[in-house]
């Protein structure tokens, strides 16, 4: 069930300015409030969009976390491709990748 917790953290980060502020001040403190797996926790600490994508995070949540981290759209898309290159196919959820890691579908 930890994917649920990871996505709930993304949900809160996306819509709650207070959580965003706490996350900026101390990522660890915020992460302590959620029952994350070690892999998920590490990915949040590192801002590893690619890993969170492979772990099954829904893109509709993940893309806003990327924006919060200051990642332009093209970098966000590339980070997910890099995640699949490094960690293999998406493991859960409905956002599995169907194109190849060297394909730029929309030119980015």
């Amino acid at each position, binding site marked *: 069930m930890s994917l649920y917790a990871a996505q*709930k953290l993304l949900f809160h980060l996306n819509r709650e300015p207070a959580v965003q502020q706490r996350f900026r001040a101390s990522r660890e403190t915020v992460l302590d409030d959620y029952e994350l797996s070690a892999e998920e926790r590490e990915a949040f600490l590192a801002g590893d969009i690619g890993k969170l994508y492979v772990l099954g995070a*829904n893109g509709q949540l993940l893309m806003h976390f990327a924006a919060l981290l200051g990642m332009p759209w093209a970098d966000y898309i590339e980070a997910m491709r890099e995640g699949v290159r490094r960690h293999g196919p998406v493991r859960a959820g409905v956002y599995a990748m*169907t194109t190849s890691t060297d394909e730029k579908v929309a030119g980015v």
Partner: protein
Amino acid sequence: MSLVFAGACSHGPGITGRAHLAEPGVRDAFHAEFRGMGEALAATNPDALIVIAAEHFANFFMNNMPAYAIGMAEHYEGPIEDPGWLGIPRTRIPGHAELSLRLVRGVMQTVDVAYAEEWKFDHGIMVPLHFLTPRFDLPIIPVNINCQGPPLTPLHRAWAFGEALRRACDAVPERIALVSTGGISHWPATPDSGKINEPWDREFLDRWLRQDKAAMLSYSDEATYRDAGQGGFEIRTFIAAAAAARGRGELRFYAPIPIFSVGCTVALMAIE
């Protein structure tokens, strides 16, 4: 009065947020048709606009996910996303709590629906409003169909929900416009973003435009996911609008615009 206007449109955040990356010719043609839909809507002199959207975890999450929800607030705020990212400034949008209450009561006669006295609009509503009511001055009644977190409501229930909305609209004196917004085939927010199955889109639109209920409801979620991506689940909003409007559709614009991640669509539907 009743329903005075019905239509359907796209809402991808790239439509405004990544407008500068699109090929100008097709982008401008799409944006012009989108604004034209707003003019057609305004010409019907509506008192309120129902937007049937498929929001993306801005308000509803898997801790308590309604299949159907209707906003019941005096005002709303959006976008919930970073305004710079979306290309739409944050603003307050008027609602109509009392009218919402009457509509909710009407819908509840046949379809159980959640209500929400608090609702932050995400791109799923803000992008359409940016073009349709650019001054954000028409009272909005937001409606959500869960198209994001499976299990999802069956298509035949989306149809029943549209019928229930129509009956509820028919029972109030106000003039009500209705716009549904969703993607057809698309794989948004993934590395596949920009992939669009145009033949699938055109087939679905054909079924929608000619009000072929049986054909519209014949898609399985498994087939939709395979052929149209997780974004294809949003056909539920189109289906609800068809059930509410009952008339034939008119396609004003369709073109795949990959950087917008969706086959960009503007369509009207006759009220019968």
